[in-house]
């Protein structure tokens, strides 16, 4: 049975507490695993954006961040009961769980940013997995095609898998990422 180390951290949803918490989570990971500098950078930007997402969208006073280490990867799960992930279908705002049943395999576009588009693969009416579709690589980049919101794209680029799951039992939003060690 491989070793699994798990710890749940609590974010008080104040900006002042963001970076100290990131530092604590990185220290916890370094206690239990050999992590390269490049992977540490990816972990940091992912944590910063997950916590920034909580600052923007979580309505309650605290957000739980669960960090789990196995032999070959780090998983981080952010759970809150704030506003659900905002997605649109034909410009209509969609509520979670998504209505209807025929969602599996459907791909939706979240937003475009320069030469990349953030998309998501719907797994079912409560789950989606983000991915990035690269489009034509323009050099120099057309500034006017750059988005002014990057959070989800940063996380998607920084980690190996990035999943959103709406838990109908607790009405909670769960952002789950994994990064290989």
């Amino acid at each position, binding site marked *: 049975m491989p070793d699994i180390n798990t710890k749940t951290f609590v974010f008080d949803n104040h*900006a002042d507490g*963001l*970076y100290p918490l*990131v530092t604590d989570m990185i220290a916890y990971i370094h206690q239990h695993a050999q992590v390269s*500098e*490049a992977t540490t*950078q990816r972990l*940091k*930007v992912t944590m*910063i*954006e997950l916590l*920034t997402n909580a*600052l*923007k969208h979580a309505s309650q006073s605290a957000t739980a961040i669960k960090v789990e280490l196995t032999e070959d990867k780090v998983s981080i799960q952010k759970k809150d009961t704030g506003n659900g992930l905002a997605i649109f279908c034909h410009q209509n705002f969609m509520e979670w769980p998504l209505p209807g049943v025929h969602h599996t395999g459907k791909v939706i576009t979240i937003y475009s*940013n*320069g*030469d*990349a588009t953030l998309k998501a693969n719907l797994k079912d009416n409560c789950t989606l997995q983000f991915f990035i579709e690269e489009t034509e690589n323009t*050099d*120099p*980049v057309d*500034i*006017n095609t*750059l*988005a*002014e*919101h*990057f*959070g989800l*794209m*940063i996380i998607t*680029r*920084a980690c190996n898998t990035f999943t959103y799951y709406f838990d109908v039992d607790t009405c909670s939003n769960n952002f789950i990422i994994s990064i290989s060690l």
Partner: protein
Amino acid sequence: MILLTNIYKDALIGAIQVKEANLTVSDGFKEEMTALIDKGNKYIVVDFDGVIYVDSSFLGALVSSLKYAIANQAEIVVSGLNKDVSGLFQLIRLDKAFKIYSSATEAAERKS
């Protein structure tokens, strides 16, 4: 005030005065950048020396400022990125949108 400004040669250097460039200062930063562009500055160096991290909100404000600068025939370059911030620029390819220099004085001296 988010930016401490000074003129060096033909450039205006705006040194970020906060260690955490995040959503609590992004709107203020954008307003200050807009004011600097409106005053007619054509080459603005945003110096990140001393900034420990940058979040997506601040990057959004930086990109918004760049669009406004270009619409006003001005240029924004950045300097003083630490390893984490530099890695973030590369991760989302903002290194293609901004000229990046190691220091503000180097950025000012490279004005074309």
